[in-house]
């Protein structure tokens, strides 16, 4: 037996209350972990966004098209490597408008050069390059709809009306988190051929590789400068800069979530503070006995803080034990499959796991500060006179 084991044993005194408190802390921590993970997943999206890729779109809005030959012009700018282009196609499975997934028309050859983190088996790649109606789909999307290589898929267009038939030539995965795995990419030539007059030879945006990421800012400016004198001007930004500016737009929501996290932590502290204060009050007489025997105020303070640490740690660990499987296997899988654009990677970060446990302990100690102080000021005689 030692001083620490007494603090642990004290938590067994009122098992029911201890269990309720620990579960309370665990639930609060679980909620905290979930919010932190949403935030982290968002930031991870920005962090993993490529620094070495510049997107160039219509200066006014990305809904407006650029002339296709702009892509050729971008290629001439020093510092630019491979260049590809894309159109938002906006089609859906016939009769299933609610099942959203990103589908984009692109030039397969240059697309695979610019998005070199895409991993596609060599034979599938070859098929796609040669197939006018070919498409490749992300592994997550393929799993969601049960698509296999060789399947024929019909999509119903909205921006480009009509029924469009595609061959699934390949299923891609990604070697980095900078591209999601639930998009549908198909051959731009096929779309252009059947597009209505005003939409012909028009592209949604240009994506160019900058082999030296430190030049991304300069190159972006150079691109926009090139088109400045023309009828249609452009806005260029690295993918990283774009995601970061998107995060800036979301900052109110992020702040709201931070506040909710804080409120959760506050509630947790109240639960803990209440339990600890109740325990201390009930044990006043006992603390008097300990002081009589020769224990010092600092020992009693240590008992109270030790007990708080045990409660906080137990709650934090339980929260982690419940939260990690729930988030990683449950919520996270759902988010990755359904909101992949925002959350390409929705898992509990190690950092957040550690933060949640450390916070549980730190907040428990803060919650215990007042009772711990009171117990150190305890008057021995009065405590001994107090019955029960």
């Amino acid at each position, binding site marked *: *037996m030692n001083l620490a084991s*007494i603090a642990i044993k004290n938590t067994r*005194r009122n098992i029911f209350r201890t269990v309720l408190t620990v579960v309370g802390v665990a639930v609060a921590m679980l909620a905290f972990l979930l919010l932190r993970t949403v935030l982290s997943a968002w930031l991870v999206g920005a962090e993993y966004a490529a620094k070495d890729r510049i997107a160039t779109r219509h200066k006014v809005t990305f809904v407006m098209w650029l002339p296709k030959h702009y892509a050729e012009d971008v290629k001439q700018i020093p510092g630019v490597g491979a260049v590809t282009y894309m159109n938002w196609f906006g089609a859906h499975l016939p009769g299933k408008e609610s099942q959203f997934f990103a589908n984009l028309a692109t030039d397969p050859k240059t697309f695979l050069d610019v998005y070199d983190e895409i991993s596609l088996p060599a034979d599938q790649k070859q098929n796609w390059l040669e197939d006018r109606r070919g498409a490749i789909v992300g592994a997550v999307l393929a799993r969601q709809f049960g698509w296999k290589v060789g399947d024929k898929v019909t999509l119903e267009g909205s921006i480009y009306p009509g029924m469009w038939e595609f061959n699934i030539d390949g299923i891609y995965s990604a070697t980095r988190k900078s591209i999601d795995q639930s998009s549908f990419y198909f051959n731009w030539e096929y779309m252009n051929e059947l597009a209505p007059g005003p939409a012909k030879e028009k592209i949604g945006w240009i994506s160019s590789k900058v082999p030296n990421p430190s030049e991304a800012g300069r190159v972006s400016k150079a691109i926009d400068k090139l088109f400045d004198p023309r009828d249609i001007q452009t806005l260029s930004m690295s993918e990283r800069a774009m995601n970061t500016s998107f995060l800036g737009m979301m900052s109110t929501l992020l702040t709201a979530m931070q506040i909710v996290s804080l409120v959760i932590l506050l509630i947790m502290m109240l639960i803990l503070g209440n339990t600890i204060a109740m325990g201390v009050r009930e044990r006043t*007489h006992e603390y008097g*006995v300990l002081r009589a*025997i*020769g*224990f010092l105020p600092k020992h009693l303070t240590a008992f109270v803080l030790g007990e708080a640490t045990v409660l906080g740690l137990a709650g934090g660990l339980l929260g982690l034990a419940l939260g990690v499987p729930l988030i990683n296997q449950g919520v996270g899988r759902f988010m990755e499959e359904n909101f992949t654009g925002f959350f390409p990677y929705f898992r509990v970060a190690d950092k957040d796991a550690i933060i949640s446990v450390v916070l549980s302990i730190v907040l428990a100690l803060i919650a215990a500060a007042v009772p711990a102080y009171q117990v150190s000021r305890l008057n021995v005689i009065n405590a001994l006179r107090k019955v029960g």
Partner: protein
Amino acid sequence: MSALIKLEKVGKTYFRGKEPIEVLKDLDLEMPEGAFEALMGPSGSGKSTLLNLIAGLDSVTSGTISVSGVNLGAMSEGQRAHWRSQNVGFIFQTYNLLPVLTAAENVELPLLLAPLSSAERKTRSLTALRAVGLEERGHHRPDQLSGGQQQRVAIARAIVTDPKIIVADEPTGDLDRVSANQILELLVKMNKELKKTIVMVTHDPAAAERASIVRHLDKGQLT
């Protein structure tokens, strides 16, 4: 026998709000080393107050108390706590064992304040439990023991640090006659065999009979 505990003109006044309550007045008292003292007197006469002063739990309002020549009034509260842990064993009316600890752990508790190895603490608490005849009950919790057994554990806890003085505030007050007699036998044994000076507050004339010296307190004065 020389005086182990010496009180000179001791006064103790409590305040209830602004109103002073003079509990002890100009008390002079000497308790010899090795004595078994019984303090008797009506309820509210200041017996517990006097005991707490002797035990170094509380400080006097006036006068001096010295134990083995050491002036308790000159000590800080921290020094008195340390002094208590080495010189005084406590026995209370309601036993006051920690309910979450076993009997053996309760006995070991005061030793946590001494620089002893875990093995040595175990040996000493077992010896103390044996002295009260409860070596078989070391792993029991207080609520698994009778009142008399709990009080014997409390006696083991009081002697485990080998203090000079044992103070007992109505140690038999909550016990039936048979258990009370066992406790009193034990106190006599501690006094005779282990040479402990015992100061016991009691209401019970049968208990006072076991003591070597009986004193009566009334309205803060020895009579």
